[in-house]
């Protein structure tokens, strides 16, 4: 048996290995190049530090929500608002914090814990002369390492935040007993919550690791699960950021807009307070902060019962997380069924298709399997989210001109997404399959196979974005704007692709899609960005003279593009 200190030191190696594993997985078919990069650029080796600090700060920042809610409780109460409603809103805010904490932890840490959870990094640990128990503890320490900074922030922030702000603000308003109770219970809640969150993180990262690295036959079902979970992940990430902004801005308003009768609110309060996570804790802190005034005994009992349930729940999840951790450090990712499926020679068949379709199929296989590609393919579907979230206030305050600004910002966002899509698609080409290198590939076919992505994905996302505003007064204006700009998107994407190929893939006799001219790569990438944005800006500029001119510009540039295509990629 080694000492904990020694094991913690060893866990550093495993942790690094896990990070690299995650990075390699995201690099996908680009791994060879990534390894070369990491060899030269040492900062690439610890990409986790910044994210760790960011999430620690985010978690710390979150605490402003419950504290804000708690310290305004008394002034709200004295302004004559129904106490049951005050309890409701206050508890909701604290509970919101309790939910967001693990969400943020997960969003920021997932990228790294996932590599560790796949179990890959433990493989070589097993070749060392270490006991089973030691390896288990290394597994535990490795996990702790992946969130050590966030951990400090999580365990300290709520109690200190409460102590400082509440003592300062509420000190004179509530009794000493309540004050002490508040500090003690927030400390207690922090500890339970911490264990709960960590366990949840362990279990969820493990689930994600299994989904992302499922090595079994490439079934359509696993592909769909993979894509859907990535989309959910990004939506949750965006949603949480948005909610935080809303929450802080809207808490005072919420207090003022009671929509149920006092009786209903009371019933809702009692039901919610029994729900262990996240409400029980939220209610408990709120009730104490209210100094127990106007609080029914039933509610106090309910939230205490909820808290006890929460402790049990945490214990249960903690046990489950422990066994998950044990599994990772000791066995393979997934237990395969032992019965072997018979495979016959007759199973070996071939189905051919045209080259363009073949490229499309290959791209799909790779995109749905590799992290970096999935991310890039999902980017376009963030466009509708942008429409949903960002311009809510902008249009109200700026009016019709504001609407145009919103659209222009969105078009630039579209061009950014286009560049990323182009990058992702060309990455697959240069993703170094030596078998493709030996195939008689016509670059023309390759380019053709990218067109559906440009014609379908981004335009579709743009239309969906507009549909989010269906029924509003600006809808006609928005949808006509989008329709007028629809042809621009594939034009801009293709031009961006051609330009990138021109910069990176120029050979003596032809131009290819792979990145082969890598010298002054940063400058070239910037040029591609500037080119794409510039092109989009030009179209926007033309559209200012009216949609007729835009249409002419579209036709002219489509013809130019077709000529370029024939020159760059001849038959």
């Amino acid at each position, binding site marked *: 048996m080694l000492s904990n200190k020694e094991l913690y030191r060893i866990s550093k190696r495993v942790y690094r290995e896990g990070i690299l594993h995650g990075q390699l997985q995201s690099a*996908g*078919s680009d791994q*060879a190049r990534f390894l070369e990069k990491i060899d030269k650029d040492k900062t690439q080796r610890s990409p986790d530090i910044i994210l760790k600090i960011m999430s620690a700060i985010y978690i710390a920042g979150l605490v402003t929500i419950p504290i804000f809610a708690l310290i305004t409780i008394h002034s709200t109460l004295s302004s004559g608002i129904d106490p049951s409603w005050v309890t409701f809103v206050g508890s909701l805010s604290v509970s919101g914090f309790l939910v967001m904490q693990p969400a943020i932890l997960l969003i920021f840490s997932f990228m790294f814990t996932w590599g560790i959870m796949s179990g890959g990094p433990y493989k070589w640990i097993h070749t060392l002369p270490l006991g089973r128990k030691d390896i288990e503890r290394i597994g535990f320490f490795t996990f702790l390492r992946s969130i050590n900074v966030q951990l400090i922030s999580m365990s300290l922030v709520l109690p200190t935040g409460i102590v400082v702000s509440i003592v300062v603000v509420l000190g004179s308003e509530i009794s000493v007993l309540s004050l002490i109770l508040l500090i003690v219970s927030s400390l207690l809640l922090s500890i339970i919550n911490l264990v709960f969150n960590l366990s949840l993180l362990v279990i969820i990262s493990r689930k994600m690791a299994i989904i992302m690295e499922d*090595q079994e*036959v*490439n079934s359509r079902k696993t592909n769909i699960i993979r894509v859907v979970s990535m989309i959910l992940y990004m939506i949750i990430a965006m949603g949480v950021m948005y909610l935080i902004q809303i929450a802080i801005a809207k808490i005072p308003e919420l207090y003022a807009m009671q929509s149920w009768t006092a009786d209903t609110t009371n019933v809702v309060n009692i039901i919610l307070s029994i729900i262990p996570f996240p409400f029980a804790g939220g209610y408990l802190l709120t009730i104490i902060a209210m100094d127990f005034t106007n609080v029914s005994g039933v509610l106090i009992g309910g939230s205490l019962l909820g808290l006890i349930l929460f402790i049990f729940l945490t214990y249960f999840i903690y046990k489950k997380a422990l066994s998950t951790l044990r599994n990772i450090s000791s066995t393979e990712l997934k237990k395969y069924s032992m019965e072997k499926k018979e*495979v*016959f*020679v*007759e*199973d*070996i*068949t*071939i*189905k*051919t*298709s*045209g*080259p363009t*379709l*073949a490229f499309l*199929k*290959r791209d799909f*296989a*790779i995109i749905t*399997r*590799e992290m970096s590609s999935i991310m890039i393919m999902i980017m376009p579907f963030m466009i509708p989210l942008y429409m949903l979230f960002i311009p809510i206030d902008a249009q109200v305050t700026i009016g019709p001109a504001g609407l145009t600004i919103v659209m222009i910002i969105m078009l630039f966002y579209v061009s950014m997404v286009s560049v990323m899509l182009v990058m992702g698609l060309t990455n697959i080409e240069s*993703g*170094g*399959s*030596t*078998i493709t*290198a*030996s*195939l*008689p*590939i*016509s670059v023309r076919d390759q380019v053709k196979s990218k067109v559906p992505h440009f014609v379908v994905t981004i335009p579709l996302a743009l239309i969906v974005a507009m549909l989010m505003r269906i029924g509003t007064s600006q809808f006609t204006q928005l949808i006509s704007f989008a329709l007028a700009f629809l042809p621009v998107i594939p034009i801009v994407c293709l031009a961006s692709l051609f330009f990138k190929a021109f910069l990176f893939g120029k*050979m*003596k*006799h032809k131009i290819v899609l792979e990145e082969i001219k890598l010298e002054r790569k940063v400058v070239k990438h910037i040029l591609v960005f500037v080119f794409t944005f510039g092109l989009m800006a030009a179209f926007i500029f033309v559209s200012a003279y009216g949609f007729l001119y835009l249409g002419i510009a579209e036709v002219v540039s489509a013809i130019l593009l077709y000529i370029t295509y024939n020159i760059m990629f001849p038959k």
Partner: protein
Amino acid sequence: MITEKSAMVSVTNLTKSFGTVVAVNDISFEVKPGEIFGLLGPNGAGKTTTVKQILGLLEQEQGEIKVFGLDPGKDDVEIKRNIGYVSEDPLIYKSMTPRMLFNFIASIRGMDESETTKKLQYYFESLEAVEYYDKLVATLSRGNKQKMQVIAALIHEPLLLIMDEPLTGLDAKSAKVVKEILELHKERGGSVIFSTHILEVAEEMCDRIAIMDKGKIIAMGTVEELSKMANKVGADLEDIFLKLTNQDESVNHIVKNLRNMINGNKRS
């Protein structure tokens, strides 16, 4: 048209450098139809670089390469139609299964479905890889990945096979099968460029061998011709190779030091 006399590949005064490293230095050779041509040399000799230029995967600087009379820099697509290539590292899309991979290859090469299916079944069966047809490439062992590469190079029955260390990772039986396939290919008039640093393999398989060292071809010919050059008639290729690359002295030296070191650290 490819006739008996015209060369499959002819390389004249080829030079290629990466920055300051001259990887290939003014080499010339020809590969005839029905011939297995060996490129033999120590690590870093420039074998892979030479082979990649023949395929048009690296840009040509100086010298001339003709494959089937065509220029790989210009007509690489036409050339690749008639070439099968096994690269030294089996980099295959990890996120695909062999089924997807061979569907892709057959589509790009515009091959006939039923005919290809038959050939594929034959190759998978003789290389004992049938059970991996629907497994992800990422999960295959090194040797099984290599088999996929070899099958991909053979499936369209090309005129010329370019094989960079094709036997790495293969078990004895599969290696034997691949060697037999290459012999058959040769008997039917095809050519092979076979790059390796394993002397026994080169000796056994190749009709002619070019010994490369530090980017140069230092000797070329049949095994007998090479042994004459090294003044070691009847010697095996290992001795010839070490003599020609001037490594025989230094190898003796290394072996002696190694023995001293190991003897000095007797296991207790």
